[in-house]
């Protein structure tokens, strides 16, 4: 195994590293021993015992060789020496010794190469075929900007003509996504929430900071500028959020702006500062409450509306800030979900912790 290859893969093994003082060779032995342990019995987590440090222990910066770019794909290295044919048992033994060293038999190697050539040919043909068929279909479609196009049918006319009357919102897109088709938007917000939960399950460690071990300090100038502009970014995000039913914008765009303001603050001042205000628990509870609020309020309005009753929610004067019935509160709850999800995704990917 070349030394460079080992270096590259230190990242995923640093969990098992013991002491920064020890030299690399002893570390590698430790790693292999731990790997074997894992293979034999996944349940016995010996390296989390008291005498060996846990995953949470901070490593020194020089222990951490992250960000090494994957070099050129070297077939001869990957498939082993071409001259000597290596049998299956040997390959298995080698693969067991080092998870990274993979040696294949000659037959398997040839089959793999044939598959690759076949796959490239098929993908070329597939791409050309699909794009050709799509362009052929496009040439039969109505012209760009044609008012007589069949997409501009009575549904669109109904939304434009009756939208303000029905919902009280002058922004027809907001009226569609938060009033007519509000349950679809609830599903959309749930997809976002589910993605956040999935990322938390995959990335978050119990003690955090798996990927960035060194606390980054940013230059004074950057911190000063972020301090200066982040209030304005927040105000702009809230403006976009609250005016979603009057002008372009709404919960999704305003929430994204708020989330990026939070991320910007976390970049310059460290996530610890944001965490004091917005801990993991607060974040999840806020998102859950916002989603619950959305579901209950819109469910109520849908049930009442379907029964032909008056929901008792005033629509207000179209064009005013407080108009549009439920659209403003729904925009705010969607904004909370999006802002916290965007910030949560940033924090999880950069620190491994919200």
């Amino acid at each position, binding site marked *: 195994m070349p030394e460079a290859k080992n270096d590259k893969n230190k*990242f995923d093994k640093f969990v098992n590293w013991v002491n920064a003082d020890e030299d690399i060779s002893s570390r590698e032995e430790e790693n292999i021993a731990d790997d074997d342990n894992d293979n034999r019995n996944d349940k016995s987590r010996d390296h989390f015992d008291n005498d060996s440090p846990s995953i949470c222990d901070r490593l020194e910066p020089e222990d951490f060789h992250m960000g090494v770019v994957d070099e050129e*794909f070297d077939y001869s290295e990957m498939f082993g020496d071409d001259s000597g044919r290596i049998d299956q048992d040997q390959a298995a033994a080698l693969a067991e010794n080092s998870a990274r060293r993979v040696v294949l038999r000659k037959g398997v190697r040839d089959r793999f190469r044939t598959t690759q050539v076949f796959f490239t040919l098929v993908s070329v043909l597939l791409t050309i075929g699909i794009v050709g068929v799509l362009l052929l279909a496009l040439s039969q479609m109505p012209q760009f900007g044609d008012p007589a196009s069949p997409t501009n049918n009575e549904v*669109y006319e109904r939304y434009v003509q009756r939208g303000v009357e029905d919902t009280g919102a002058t922004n027809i897109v907001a009226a569609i996504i938060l009033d007519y088709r509000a349950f679809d938007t609830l599903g959309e917000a749930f997809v976002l929430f589910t993605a956040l939960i999935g990322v938390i399950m995959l*990335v978050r460690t119990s003690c955090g900071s798996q990927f960035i071990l060194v606390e980054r300090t940013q230059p004074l100038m950057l911190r000063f500028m972020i301090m200066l502009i982040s209030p304005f970014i927040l105000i702009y995000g809230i403006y976009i959020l609250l005016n979603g039913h009057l002008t372009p914008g709404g919960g999704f765009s305003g929430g994204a702006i708020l989330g990026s303001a939070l991320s910007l603050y976390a970049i310059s001042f460290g996530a610890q500062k944001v965490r004091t205000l917005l801990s993991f628990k607060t974040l999840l509870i806020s998102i859950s409450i916002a989603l619950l609020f959305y579901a209950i309020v819109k469910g109520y309005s849908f049930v009442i509306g379907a029964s032909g009753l008056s929901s008792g929610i005033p629509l207000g004067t179209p064009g005013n800030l407080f108009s549009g019935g439920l659209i403003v509160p729904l925009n705010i709850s969607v904004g909370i979900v999006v802002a916290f999800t965007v910030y949560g995704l940033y924090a999880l990917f950069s620190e491994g912790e919200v």
Partner: protein
Amino acid sequence: MLEALRSNYIEATALILFGIGLATLLWEKNLIKKIIGFNIMETSIFLFLTAKGYIAGRGAPIITDGITDVEYYINPLPSAIVLTGIVIAVSITAFMLALCLKIYDIYGTLDMDKITVMDMAERSED
């Protein structure tokens, strides 16, 4: 056919972008580049939908001065669909990147060929 494509040049661009994204998805070995290809495909579909919603000479679907005449506004439905699509695209991208982190944890590489070979070696042991 070419004349029709020239008048529909925005949609044609979207479809070619779709092809570029599909090719990236199929050819690239690196998983991150595959995700980039996937995102190009999504973006091309958004471009296609918004282009289909446009009507020449009309404004954004925001009722101004109480005018509710259809003649003044473009079709708001594709915009609403694109808004949904963007959120779903962000969610899927985030989840795929998290899966990539896990794959890198286990295999030490994001190269599909190397991952395939490692799997084949494991299978040949059995």
